[in-house]
């Protein structure tokens, strides 16, 4: 964690079923398109989990109306955080196939 700046943002998860199977798959697939290390958390204080791991993301069992925190570190960190936030705002439509 010592090269590059940490970028952080947060977004309200509105998806009715929470961060369940399909949104989790879409989110991890999107995160994997960035070289930055991307993490998400359900609280500002963490615990932070690897946004590229569907096992970890599903394991959070995040219900709807949770404030989701996104942070990234690496070359394309800013783009990664923006893309994840946009995906959640767009109700998980338009992620990579």
């Amino acid at each position, binding site marked *: 964690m010592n090269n590059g700046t940490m970028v952080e943002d947060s977004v309200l998860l509105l998806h009715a*079923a*929470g961060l*369940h*199977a*399909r949104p*989790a*798959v879409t989110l*991890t*697939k999107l995160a994997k398109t960035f070289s930055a290390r991307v993490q998400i958390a359900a609280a500002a204080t963490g615990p932070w989990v*690897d946004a590229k*791991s*569907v*096992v*970890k993301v*599903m*394991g959070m*069992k995040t*219900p709807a109306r949770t404030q989701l925190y996104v942070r990234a570190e690496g070359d394309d960190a800013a783009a990664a955080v923006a893309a994840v936030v946009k995906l959640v705002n767009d109700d998980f439509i338009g992620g990579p196939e």
Partner: protein
Amino acid sequence: MSSAALAPPRTLVGQTAAPGLVLGRIVELDERAAPVGLPPVVPLDEAIAEAVRQLRALRDVTDVTDDADAQRLIEFQIEFLGDPTLLEPARAALAAGADAATAWCRAIDAQIDDFAAADDDYFRHRVGDLRDMRERVIAVLTGGSVGALRLPPDAVLLADDLAPSRFLATDWRPGQAVLLRGSSPTAHVALLARARAVPMVVGLGDMVIEPGEWAIVDGGAGTVALAPDGAQRADFARRRACADDEQRREAAAAARVATTHAGERVQVMINVATLDELDGVDPAICDGIGLVRTELMFAAGPPDEATQLDFYRRLLAWAGGRPVVVRTLDAGGDKPMPGVTVDGETNPFLGVRGVRLSLAAPELFKVQLRALLRAAAAGALRIMVPMVTRPDELLQVRRLLAQATSELAAEGRPFASAPLGLMVEVPAVALSLEAFDADFASIGSNDLLQYTMAAARDNPAVSALADAAHPGFDALLRLAVKTAAARGLPLSLCGDLASRPAHVPRLLAAGLRSLSVPAAAVGAVKSAISEWR
């Protein structure tokens, strides 16, 4: 008296699933145990990669527009299995010297426990997917057979329930029996137990029996006598000797052509789900195969055309010119299938099952139809469609058959047309058989009965209501027989009812002259036919 010191004698009452008398000792099935005695043929990483390949193949044959949910579920499984995080606990276990299957179970069971404990339904419901992944990978690791059990020769296996694939993978021997706390006499595993003549009692409810305790299982009565005393053991020995005599008489009856007391010929065919069920069965005891269940072939994902073709050809070869009636995939209802059936239906028995599912996934269905048409070139194959409700469903199947036919012709592959029939399971169909453009029909009595009596066949609490002697059910049967006779439509009955000798007189009285039963029941059914006047 030594057994009395262990525990006092007591008797448990369940429901009969498969007849037979056995004295043996209780072995409890630990559902969470890794499969035992199976060599780790494939390293874990390769097994995971193969499981992912199978899922991708499954995804590619699932129609996106028609079955988006199934696609998403498969996609989820692919991503989950492909996530290295999943295998972290397995790596630790492997490093500690565990075999691949044990290591895999440790990793996936941790996930299953985690999701099973979730507050939210959405997450709890993923447990089914995780179990699918668990079984799929185990199947790859163990060379295709899911969780074979290795049991002592006098084992009375006690379990909550038993997966049909696991039952089939296990090499059952005479002297063994199965007790299930749940399940029902019409569950798939019960059908298989009857076919394999493994005594089975189901619906015993929640109870605890000490492993190693002696038990006399009476499959026919649905009772279990625990810690039997001397008198009970002597009684068992007497009845066992009688049963052996009867078995010899039935074997003799099986070899004869079935005729009623008045000399009227009755066709007796057999029901089959796997080739190994035919081991040791003489084709001469039957008039052909009246029902081939194809679901088990799909248990580890849809088989390709060549695999299916091989299966159908082997059945035809065994039958030696006798007809073989193959039922197209009958998934759904109480037979969910990973990645194929629809998850989360509130009432799967009234949902997307049988031909409804096949027509919703025509590409998957067409693979089966192509294999059937190709096999038909090798013998008297007939195609039977389950869960038909409206005449247009059968017409849609005919159109798909026509498409498959022109494809095969264009490819220059040998094929032959095959008679197309329907299962009579929906009461509305039994009431209107004249409306269907079919070459033959067969009554699926388990489903026809459950739909007529509004009593789910997977619910032990209402199984007494699934009463085949009800005048309403009898009237329905008689009407179907009459309509079929008037139209010259060959009508058979391939449900469970036909295999119970006590019900045979009722079916003959209703006018049926063709029955299809498990091979193990042929002798008893032919005896019952010969006594009917």
